């Protein structure tokens, strides 16, 4: 074995990359073997060819989509957390408002996007609002659960020392909630991204400065399916990148104490 294979870094990155390469190989092989036409399912090589020629345009579109995604994700994280804070103040508040949080989640963006677009004049802001709506609920749901899941002994300790609601929140509930909060963020980061794409689909922004949805739509209309797959690939790659960033943040924040993140000591 070479040192590379043994390094911890390789063990982290190696398996997923290998899996990816194997999958790509199978895909390419299938396409070639059965002679699947490009406009039905393009081979990875065909997609790669698009990148060779169209990378700048596609990356510009990706950047535009990512901008919306990041803003929406930030908004969803902040608003969702605040809502969860309100919910754990009392069961009555939670019972009164949680159904309406669920309503927000299950209202299809496609349906309310026109309203948002009419209300919010700035198209970009409207996109952000739509995507944030999509990403909001998992943050609320997981954070609320997390804030509720506190060690009863510690809760007693805080009650005993007459900790105020804010103190209990900051010093007990928030630290206890972190693992679930981050799990919520990991789900939401992906949702913010598809939220952004769907919002772009719906809002129908085109032309320069438009995002990946436009590239996908146009490539679809023009049957430039390799290009469509290239755009899809960029979206999924961005999603995975977001996820990995969130996973890294989780490890940074919890690495030292939470069971789900601790590596066994040897």
């Amino acid at each position, binding site marked *: 074995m070479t040192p590379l294979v043994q390094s911890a870094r390789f063990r982290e990155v190696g398996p997923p990359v290998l899996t990816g390469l194997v999958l790509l190989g199978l895909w390419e092989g299938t396409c070639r073997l059965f002679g699947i036409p490009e406009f039905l399912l393009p081979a990875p090589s065909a997609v790669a060819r698009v990148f060779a020629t169209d990378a700048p345009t596609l990356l510009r579109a990706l950047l535009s989509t990512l901008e919306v995604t990041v803003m929406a994700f930030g908004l969803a994280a902040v608003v969702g957390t605040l809502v969860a804070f309100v919910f754990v103040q009392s069961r009555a508040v939670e019972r009164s408002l949680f159904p309406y949080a669920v309503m927000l989640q299950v209202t299809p963006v*496609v349906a309310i996007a026109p309203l948002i677009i009419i209300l919010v004049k700035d198209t970009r802001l409207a996109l952000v609002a739509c995507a944030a709506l999509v990403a909001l609920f998992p943050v609320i749901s997981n954070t609320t659960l997390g804030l509720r899941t506190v060690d009863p002994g510690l809760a007693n300790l805080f009650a005993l020392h007459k900790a105020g609601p804010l103190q209990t929140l900051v010093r007990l509930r928030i630290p206890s909630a972190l693992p679930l909060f981050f799990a919520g963020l990991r789900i939401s980061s992906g949702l913010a991204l598809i939220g952004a794409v769907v919002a772009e*689909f719906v809002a*129908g922004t*085109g*032309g320069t400065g438009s995002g990946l949805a436009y590239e996908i739509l146009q490539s679809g*209309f023009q049957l430039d399916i390799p290009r469509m797959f290239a755009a899809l690939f960029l979206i999924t790659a961005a999603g995975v990148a977001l996820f990995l960033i969130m996973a890294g943040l989780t490890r940074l924040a919890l690495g030292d104490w939470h069971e789900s993140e601790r590596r066994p000591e040897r």
Partner: protein
Amino acid sequence: AEKFSYLTSWFAQAEHGGFYEAQAEGLYGKAGIDADIRQGGPQVNAMQLLLAGQVDAVMGYDFQVLNAVEKGLPAVTVATTFQYDLQGLMTHADVKGLGDLKDKTVLIASSSHTTFWPWLKAKYGYTDAQTKAYTFNLQPFFADPNAAQQAYPSSEPFQAQEKGVPANFYLMAADGYPPYGSTIVVTRKTLEERPQVVRAFIKASMQGWRDYMKDPAPGNALIKAANPKMGDAQIAFGIAKLRELHALDGKNGVPIGAMTEARWKATDDYMVGAGLLKPEVDWHKAFTTEFVGDLDARLN
């Protein structure tokens, strides 16, 4: 110059060429209008944006305007672009006409269920069971030799030709489908408060169309700026189709933009007959011929 915005029905393409041409040539500016041509998209509800006051005019569709009138909404068609709805069906090579689809799967968008599909059903006895969703790209059509799908003459047939898939295209208007295509719709309020602007906009637009059919280069430049994915070949194909189908001037060479009450009546009759419109609706409210009378832009 007075601001006036016009929202098209789709991403910029040859079917919108005249408006972009007028913009490129400065025809709007000369008519005292600061025009803003905006492109629509698959999920953009133009009529709602119009009624909400977000735009001054939209590229509309007769059925939708009649529906709006039924709801008491103040939308009025002031001119048309095409003498026919360019909606048609694209089929594989074995199909010889619109009446030939009994055993075929027909891919249509859900909006078509309240536009041409009832017309086809009524005319040729088709059923809902043979429809599947059209997702605005052609893979399902190519993958299924038994499929037919809705299409615009300038778009889908071009893609099929590009990919070397032999396909036929049938325009529904050729079999008597009544509505106009790509109309200009404004609110009654705009009509009453700014009739001069509306008139000037229509006039300049139709001049734009005339010029576009002669030399599309200036318009195309703007189209490609708005929709960079639009290729020259596709635009050229689209223009050729518009010419071939006499979309702008009709079979007997009317001025570009002209509408008649008789045609509107035919549309109303069809809708009422198909159960798409209540019979008591006053269809006269859906349009006015006030602005099309003095149109004089003609193709040659």
